[in-house]
């Protein structure tokens, strides 16, 4: 007779042994719709409207608390981040970054490396690069869905709409109404397209169209110089395009810390085929037809509203921020007033009837981009976890100052906490002394080995108690370096403590070590 062969798994990263043995057929399942007795009169304990990173985070935590959970995916499992945002853009940046590296003959020659045939012989296939992004998105989406299913979360395919009655969500596809004790709104956001701009997603596109990389334009205008615009300028210039930024505010990269923005201007703009206009609006953007007519961009002065210049480019990307995706989800019926689409919440993520002096709507929560607190995927997820904590009766508030953010240009920019300008204001207002210390990539062995000595890490701290207030990094792998700082901000670690913590040598982390030590009068090297 045959026996069923068993096997060992070589690593220890493992889950319940039951999962290994084919003789045990299933892992313990969660209660589903049918046996939702503990939900009382409701179908579920928790319904989450939206299946982006925020909704996913909330669902995982909900299941971890053994709450019966359903997620309305709105036919968009993974949401913006996974399908049209952070994830596929990382694929484009990874591919284009390699092209940039391999075409940089000067840089390579310092390593003693030459590419036969020179920079021109480094070829890439636009479709191949675009496919990489698409496949990555699909894969991450599959993993995300798989984890929900495996944990026993029910996925409703349609879009969830509030019915106007408390505890009810209607599936717009089937019309079926589901009930839950608590409802978490996580509808996310969509790209903002300013008035006057016509988007055809081919020659004039938002990040949604840009991620498909339908062409490598000779010249592309990017309207808006925030994270998204900056990342795409990195992709485009690496692949051979020239870029013009159109920024409505007086400074380029207005949301960044000024010092970091200036450094970024040198590293990411000035040395690249990029120019920019600041203080101007793209008042009229007309799509073109590839090979027939260019995209026309009329620009007006942000203050005087007078026409200043017209550009004729091959493509225009609209990266002027994002607006909440809260239309047509029954908010009005539920008596909720939004402001520019944003849903008002208190710090526990409970939905308020309106922004100023609104009352808590019982059993209704809102996380992620739709509440506008911090439009980042991991912030949404953190808010989702926090909402579940509060649902379980354990009061919890997300410390948004401790949520890091990163821009994945080459080199990367990362930050946690307020900008220096904001910190100065805050210190003056709250009456404490701001301290500042800096570490330099140029003084870091690992960075020098990589021939990437450009960049700084600056630590802003409260001199009175030593606590880290904010950290801003621009330089190689900044996005990976910021975590230590985010943890410090979250835990209230002091620069005195951090300066005594040992950093691995030789690693890029020592840039931070230098800054922490500098803050307390020690030298790192």
């Amino acid at each position, binding site marked *: 007779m045959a026996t069923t062969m068993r096997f060992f798994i070589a690593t220890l990263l493992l889950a319940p042994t039951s999962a290994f043995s084919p003789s045990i057929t299933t892992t313990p399942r969660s209660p589903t719709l049918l046996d939702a007795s503990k939900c009382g009169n409701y179908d579920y304990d928790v319904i989450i409207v939206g299946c982006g990173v925020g909704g996913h985070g909330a669902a995982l935590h909900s299941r971890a608390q053994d709450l019966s959970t359903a997620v309305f995916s709105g036919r968009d499992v993974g949401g913006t981040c996974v399908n049209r945002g952070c994830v596929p853009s990382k694929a484009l940046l990874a591919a284009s970054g390699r092209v940039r590296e391999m075409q940089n003959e000067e840089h390579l020659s310092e390593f003693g490396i030459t590419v036969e045939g020179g920079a021109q012989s480094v070829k890439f296939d636009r479709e191949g690069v675009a496919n990489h992004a698409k496949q990555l998105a699909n894969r991450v989406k599959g993993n995300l869905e798989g984890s929900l299913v495996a944990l026993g979360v029910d996925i409703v395919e349609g879009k969830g709409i509030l019915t106007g009655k408390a505890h009810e969500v209607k599936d717009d596809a089937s019309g079926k109404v589901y009930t839950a004790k608590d409802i978490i709104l996580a509808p996310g956001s969509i790209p903002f397209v300013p008035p006057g701009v016509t988007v055809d997603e081919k020659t004039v596109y938002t990040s949604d169209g840009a991620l498909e990389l339908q062409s490598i334009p000779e010249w592309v205008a990017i309207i808006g110089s925030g994270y998204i615009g900056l990342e795409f300028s990195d992709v485009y210039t690496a692949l051979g395009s020239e870029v013009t930024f159109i920024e409505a505010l007086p400074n380029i990269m207005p949301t960044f810390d000024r010092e970091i923005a200036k450094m970024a201007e040198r590293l990411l703009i000035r040395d690249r085929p990029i120019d920019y206009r600041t203080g101007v609006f793209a008042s009229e953007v007309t799509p073109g037809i590839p090979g027939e007519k260019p995209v026309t961009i009329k620009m007006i002065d942000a203050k005087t509203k007078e026409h200043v210049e017209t550009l004729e480019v091959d493509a225009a990307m609209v990266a002027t921020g994002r607006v909440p995706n809260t239309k047509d989800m029954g908010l009005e019926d539920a008596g909720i007033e939004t402001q520019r689409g944003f849903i008002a919440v208190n710090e526990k993520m409970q939905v308020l009837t309106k922004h100023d002096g609104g009352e808590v709507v019982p059993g209704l929560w809102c996380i992620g981009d739709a509440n506008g607190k911090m439009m980042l995927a991991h912030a949404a997820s953190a808010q989702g976890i926090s909402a579940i904590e509060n649902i379980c009766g354990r009061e919890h508030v997300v410390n948004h100052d401790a949520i890091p953010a990163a821009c994945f240009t080459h080199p990367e920019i990362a930050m946690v906490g307020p900008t220096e300008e904001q910190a100065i204001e805050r210190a003056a207002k709250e009456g404490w002394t*701001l301290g500042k210390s800096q570490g330099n990539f140029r003084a870091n062995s690992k960075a020098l080995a990589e021939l990437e000595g450009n960049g700084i890490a600056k630590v802003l701290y409260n001199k009175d108690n030593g606590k880290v207030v904010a950290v801003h990094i621009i330089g190689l792998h900044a996005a990976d370096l910021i975590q230590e700082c985010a943890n410090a901000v979250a835990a209230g670690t002091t620069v005195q403590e951090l300066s005594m913590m040992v950093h691995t040598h030789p690693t890029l982390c020592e840039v931070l070590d230098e800054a922490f030590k500098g803050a307390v009068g020690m030298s790192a090297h």
Partner: protein
Amino acid sequence: MKSLRASGVNNRRHRSPLALPLLVAQTSRQLNPMDCRQITIDAIKPQRRSYLLRLGLRGPLALHSHHPPIQCRHHQRHAPLLRAKRRGHQITMPALSSTMKEGRVVSWLKSEGDAIEAGEAIMVVESDKADMDVEAFEDGFLAKILTGEGESAEVGAVVALVASSEEDIAAVADGGGASAPAAAPVVEAAAPAAASAAVAQPEFDFSKLDMPALSSTMKEGKVVSWLKSEGDKVEAGEAIMVVESDKADMDVEAFEDGYVAAIITGEGETALVGTPVALIAANEADIPALKAYAATLGGAPAAASPVAAAPAATAAPAKAAPKVAAAPSAAASAGGRVVASPLAKKMAQEMGVDISTVAGTGPGGRITAADIQNAAAGGGAAPAKKAAAPSKPKWTPAPGVIAATPTARALAKKAKIDLSSIQGTGEFGRVTVDDVKMATGEKKPARGLLPLVFRHQSRCLKDLSPSLECNEPFPTTWWLRLTVLCSVPAEIEMDAFNELYQSVKSKGVTVSALLAKAVAKAIEKHPIINSSFREEGTYFNKDINIAMAVAIEGGLITPVLKYANERDVLDLGENWKGALSPDEYNSGTFVISNMGMFGVSQFDAILPKGMGGILAVAGTQEYIVPCKKAVLGMKKISKMTVTLTCDHRQIYGADAAMFLKTLNDVMMNPSSLMK
């Protein structure tokens, strides 16, 4: 603002009208960088103080709150005093860190004559810590740059002069500018396992290797690679395959001893958790039988045997599809039953491949995913590659639109070229950076792009004879003479070459071979000389094949020394024995016409059609030249005149001159020819 009294410095005597900007970088701890206050020098740490004193800095120092990047800004309070006296001021190399002694100007962001506003970045300086922008501290006009890009200056040294007004630029640049020494800015550096149903199994001892659940969320896994092949013996604890899950790649080990009889899920294929991926036989003898059994496991929805298919194998019968693979064969053989892996079936359906026509290469002729892919790629019409890029559209920019890319604009501004005078070659007729470079001469006019060359040539002509109107048509012959060929003579010293020749003559090396080798070596460094002009552009010949023009009765023949740069001279010399094949006189990429043996002192050769260049080699002549080392103060040298004639459409006079210089270098140091 508060003032600290100096103890070591006589403040009254040394109080200077100058505000010494002390820029404090972020790491400073003695001084609070957030403060903006006036201090005196003893407030500074001793070693820093001596450093400042070394720089000649005394008196009240204006300590700025450091707004990055480094600002060399005089203190507001004192600045007016300075301005009254001066027609200009200086920009000095700032100290960007405490350890910085000198700084290198990476780039100037302003050119001489440019207006500067206070607070505007004017240069990038590289220190031991970082590259930083240095900002102007006062408005003015950049009069003169003293430290150029790439040059270094000591901290405190003047790197540029700034004029207060545009009229003063010349005066300041001449040195009449700053009457007061500018302050040196000092910076302190600052699955659930879905088990299949019962399976009718062979009557001997074997085991199934199932896809393991490597994480709690894993539903299916991909076999990255098999570490064992069919027929291999496995021992318990040995790694047998690598599986990729949603979390990581992991080695999967065998639990029992046995033999890998059949691999069901091939490399790169995916299987659901709990489904068998391989069969392990206890005895080697059972392998063939297990293989046959594995083939039945592979799929077969409507199989005669009561085999339960893996869940994914419930695919609907493959659609009749247009894309059909080449040879139908083995897989379909088993009585019309299709034996294919689940993934293969799924793929076939997705890709529209008729699975019954696909030849299986897996165990037992099973159709694998790779087979489907091959079938789809080979049989089907692969997405056609895009047609050649369409010609650039005709487009007239709207009024006021500057049709130039950002880099083109920037470069034109720097080079002071009017963009409207340049014809663009970019999308919609836009001026690209290459177009500007061509206009500046930095780049050769589009190597072979005919219209551009002519445009450039007409400009040259106009420069040469201002009386000529470019718009007027040129007489064709004249035009051709002026533009199509360029002929550059040069003298080459022959002593070293002759010496070498004398030493190797006995080995059978010929002058022609040596000369060909030398020319080929020089061409290696100037590939444009080896190019040919074609309508569609310059064609760079890959090989360097030197044709030697030889006069024969009634004409000329050009036997070719192929790959002359790569081959040994001796080998080259033995090249022509017997009759020449067409390839041996047609394949030349560059021609040498040697008339030295006739005592010709100099001549021009006619460029044969299709060639980029021809080198006319005249005789060697002796000259007496001054030489300090020689006994009589002079020596005898031999020189040979060569004249390079080349196709001026893609090869320029400068190219020719540079090539000839290289050739001279090679001839003067000919030892490399024998290597």
